């Protein structure tokens, strides 16, 4: 039995690199320091349901074949297609993405990563207005005001608060963990009093009014690190916060505009903006302007609503305005562990971060035209390769419909929903567990991923499988050229 320390977790954009794994007989049996998702992923490598053989669909059923046969079939599909889509990439290594781009150029297809249905709008906004940002280390050591806007790290990035923001012990800023514990104790106490009064049947008793109706100043006046959450529902993160602003769905844009006006000392002639009383907004803006180092983290609450990139542009402009008065940064909460890496590799190889079209022989980028959901909705693609991703679980139904109707190649460690509909399925080693690689954290810091255990026999890494397909594609093209 061996204990492997300082392992990087390949789940979300936090890339926590302090995981300890206990390995016995080539199996991970214990995960220490990780969150629920981390533990589930590390333990899943030894799942009994894991496919270890390549498969091809024959007469409607997936049947096991040799790796060579699957690679040959995949290469034939890609060579025969005139407009194939290569999609996924955010849960694999940068090295695999690099080979993927080479393959895409070779076959003249479109390569797109999951950012397109995630922080794609954020990237578009950054291209419009730039982004004042920093590394998470800076936030950990210096930030005294943290704002989570339209994201719920408790659920999606469970250790973000503890490692990088409000509950982390920084060099210049202390953890707000104790304050939170005291608050929880006080809350439990007040709930007990409330229920006691209810039991005594005092009918006229009115429970405390909703929190958004209380003035923020009483919550935000204390010393030390402060946490504000803006969301449409009271998420678990919101419960930890010093102050929670409940915004009406789809009205974040108005709230940003109002805050920007208040920072410039302009008057707002309405009582409420996006359901929030203006006087409370004034208090919040005061706290924002008077902090020493503020950090805004935003999530899909801003990118997935109808305002999409306009929300992010406004959020970045708000940060820019705040920088006239104090120090503020803004950062998207990237979901998959290497979605930032997929964008970075794509940018340095092709010039563009996602939705890159090679059909004319050179890279073209026009989100809305060359982005995968639009291509599928217009029914233009005639084959697809999906790697380390499960679009059928995440795309609108109409888009998935076209994806599964055309020849579909899936490379994944698990039999996911998309893989169950594949025409060619090739099982892959899990990057960060059974294969090495590099991944970029949400703040664009590259972090190496470790190989902890061996993959099942005959199972290769994404990078190796893509190389096999690429060389097979070149071989087929050469054969056909020679045959005239």
């Amino acid at each position, binding site marked *: 039995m061996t204990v492997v320390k300082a392992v990087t977790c390949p*789940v979300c954009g936090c890339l926590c690199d302090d995981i300890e794994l206990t390995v016995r007989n080539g199996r991970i049996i214990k995960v220490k320091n990780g969150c629920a998702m981390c533990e589930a992923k590390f333990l899943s490598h030894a799942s009994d349901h894991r496919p270890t053989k390549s498969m091809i669909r024959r007469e409607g059923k997936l049947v096991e074949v040799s790796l060579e046969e699957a690679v040959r079939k995949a290469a034939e599909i890609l060579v025969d297609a005139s407009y194939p889509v290569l999609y996924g990439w955010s849960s694999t290594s940068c090295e695999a993405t690099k080979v993927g781009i080479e393959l895409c150029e070779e076959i003249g297809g479109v390569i797109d990563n999951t950012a397109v249905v995630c922080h794609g709008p954020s990237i578009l906004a950054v291209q419009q207005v730039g982004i004042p940002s920093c590394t998470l280390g800076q936030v950990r050591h210096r930030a005294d005001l943290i704002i989570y806007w339209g994201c719920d790290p408790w659920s999606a990035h469970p250790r973000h608060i503890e490692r990088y923001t409000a509950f982390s012990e920084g060099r210049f800023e202390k953890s707000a963990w104790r304050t939170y514990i005291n608050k929880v104790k006080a809350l439990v106490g007040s709930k007990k009093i409330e229920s006691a009064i209810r039991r005594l049947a005092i009918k006229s008793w009115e429970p405390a009014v909703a929190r958004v109706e209380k003035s923020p100043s009483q919550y935000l006046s204390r010393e030390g690190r402060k946490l504000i959450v803006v969301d449409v529902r009271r998420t678990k993160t919101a419960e930890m916060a010093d102050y929670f602003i409940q915004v009406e769905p789809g009205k974040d844009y108005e709230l940003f505009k109002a805050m920007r006006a208040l920072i410039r000392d302009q008057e707002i002639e309405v009582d409420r903006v996006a359901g929030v009383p203006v006087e409370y907004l004034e208090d919040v803006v005061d706290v924002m302007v008077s902090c020493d180092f503020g950090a805004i983290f935003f999530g899909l609450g801003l990118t997935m609503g109808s305002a999409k990139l306009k929300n992010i542009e406004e959020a970045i402009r708000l940060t820019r305005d705040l920088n006239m008065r104090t120090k503020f940064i803004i950062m998207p909460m990237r979901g998959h562990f290497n979605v930032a890496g997929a964008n970075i590799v794509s940018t340095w190889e092709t010039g563009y971060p996602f939705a890159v079209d090679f059909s004319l022989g050179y890279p073209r980028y026009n989100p*809305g035209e060359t982005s995968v959901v*639009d291509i599928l909705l217009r029914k233009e693609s005639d084959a697809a390769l999906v790697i380390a991703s499960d679009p059928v679980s995440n795309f609108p139904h109409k888009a998935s419909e076209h994806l599964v*109707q055309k020849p579909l190649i899936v490379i994944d460690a698990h*039999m996911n929903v998309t893989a169950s509909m594949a025409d060619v399925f090739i099982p892959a080693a899990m990057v960060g567990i059974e294969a090495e690689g590099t991944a970029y954290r949400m703040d664009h810091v590259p972090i190496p991923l470790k190989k902890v255990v061996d993959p099942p026999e005959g199972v290769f890494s994404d990078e190796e499988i893509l190389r096999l397909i690429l060389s097979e594609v070149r071989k087929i093209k050469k054969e056909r050229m020679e045959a005239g």
Partner: protein
Amino acid sequence: MDKKPKLKVTLVTGRTIEQGAGKEYGKFSRKYGESVSTCYMDPEDMKKLAIRDRTNILVSTKYGSVVVKAAKSSRAPHPGIIYIPYGPWVNVLVDPETNSIGMPTLKGIPAEVEPAPDKPILSLEELLKQQFRKD
């Protein structure tokens, strides 16, 4: 006349920790299936529909309709907002329009909810068969 109550709501999709851990256990696991075929509702909205916790409901949008299980939201109050985690069930309901930027609208979609205690929730296999018919 015994007319079934219907409620107009706003549909929000997103991540829950159960969905996050469920997807790592495996997409065909019960844990994942149950976590993403659940619709979190405000208790007041459930009262309006006269339904209890864990009753099946039919959620419909302009794009499709699907049966899921209603669950009392622990994140209330959020009247008029329903929350279904990302997954094959909610994909039937979301707005595919990308407004020419590549991103479909996955949050803030107008929807309608009605009780459907007699209608079953499809299993993932059944749902895929119904939606895609590939076999």
